[in-house]
């Protein structure tokens, strides 16, 4: 079991994402992240190893059009 994420953890993650926010927005970020964290935690995991990650590169899209 992992420890619950703290406000300091969230601010550190934000800095890693390049978000060095003014103090006025830090509370906003911490609250918003709480909702996002809960939402993401509900996503079903346990996918098979070979599962397509849903970002398919389709080479024919880049083929030159024939006249």
């Amino acid at each position, binding site marked *: 079991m992992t420890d619950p994420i703290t406000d300091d953890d969230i601010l550190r993650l934000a800095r890693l994402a*390049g978000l060095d*926010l003014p103090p006025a927005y830090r509370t906003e*970020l911490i609250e*918003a992240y709480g*909702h996002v964290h809960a939402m993401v935690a509900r996503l*079903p995991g346990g*996918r098979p190893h070979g599962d397509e*990650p849903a970002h398919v590169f389709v080479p024919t899209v880049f083929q030159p059009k024939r006249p």
Partner: protein
Amino acid sequence: MSELAFLTIAEASRLIAQRKLSPVELTEAYLARIDALDSRLDSFVTLTAERARAEAKQAEAAIMSAGSRGRLHGIPYCLKDIFDTAGIRTTAMSKLLADNVPTRDSACQEKLVAAGGILLGKNATWEFAHGGPSWDILFPPARNPWDRTCSPAGSSSGSAAAVAAGFAPATLGSDTGGSIRGPAAACGIAGLKPTYGLVSRRGVLPNCFSHDHAGPLAWTAEDVAILLQAIAGHDAEDPASADVPIPDYASALTGDVEGLAIGVPARWLEDEMPLSAPTRAAFEAALDVFRGLGANVRPVTLPPLQQFDDCKRTIAVVELFTIHGKDLRTRPELFGASLRYRIIAGGLVRAEEYLLAMRLRTDLARSLQSVLSTVDLLMLPTSEPAGKLAPVPPASLFTRPSFTTPFNVGGNPALSICSGFNDAKLPFSLQIVGRLFDDATVLRAGDAYEKATPWRSMRPVL
């Protein structure tokens, strides 16, 4: 003047083609009404009156000399202020784009110009079509013409309010989780989220690339079909654009729905987001209309609503951050508080989590198409009637279930139409969902319902 302003596109185009109505006269009727009444609704953020007058004169001259070249020739329209318009500011209601004047039209605008339409102006939206309503952005939010203390919903708020108020017969909006259908529902008009890929988003400011749709709003399903005809079609400059045949949508409006199988996602409406008693009654009455027209109605089971919401919102928060990350890092104060709250945590979502959501999307889309292989259409309310126009806790974006988002996840065509009025004279709504690229059947059902019911004869009084 009001009589002209309340003509449908179908009626006006018939009169124009017969040379019984001049595009100049029609345009002046709308401009006069906007001038007199839009201060009560704030549905426009930019008015292009002189351009409209010039285009109307050109259309009149062309029609007088060579006849009408189509059903939108000489018809005024407006655009949500996220569609690029060359030489006309496109702000997305954001201070970040206060001075943004595109040099090229969006693909949709190019098509409406080519069809002979007359641009009246640009409509209010929520900031970047996502966060709102807001009072700390470039313009005030639009209001609902049925009750100006009520919300027109969002994010195509000004577009829907303008059509309902008789300021324009046609407009285009965008829909990433319900932003065409929600405002159409709140304002008692028709709004279609077409099948994903049917209408080009080139030149439309993005909200969430993988779920964004552009589409029409108008007073009737028939008018929506006329607009869709003009804007549907493949565009190599939109990577999600589908290269598919485009049917004649207007000729599909036969009024015949006999034998259609209609599925109702009963568990959503009874357990997951139970309807209020009046909305339930209006929905049952709408289903009775379809039964009376010969359709068969039966319950169907879809995946839980929350899975659709979690999937779309996880993808959206990441894609929104990708679009706005640079500005969030350097000038966060220029965002409205509502939008900033909704996207600021997107940079903290891990790539693995985004891909989990994308994989879930594939599963949910498959499930939706599987159910739609057993019925022709799904029906459910678009939303409850409009609530008061007031600040909404931004956290609600993450917590409030939605009847519209599942069809952005699946990409299916979904139409909202008016299905009556409550005791406060606010519209009820019916959402009609179809199979991928079967927008024609969705419109056929919407048109048949409208013609079988009296709701299209009622207009708001401003």
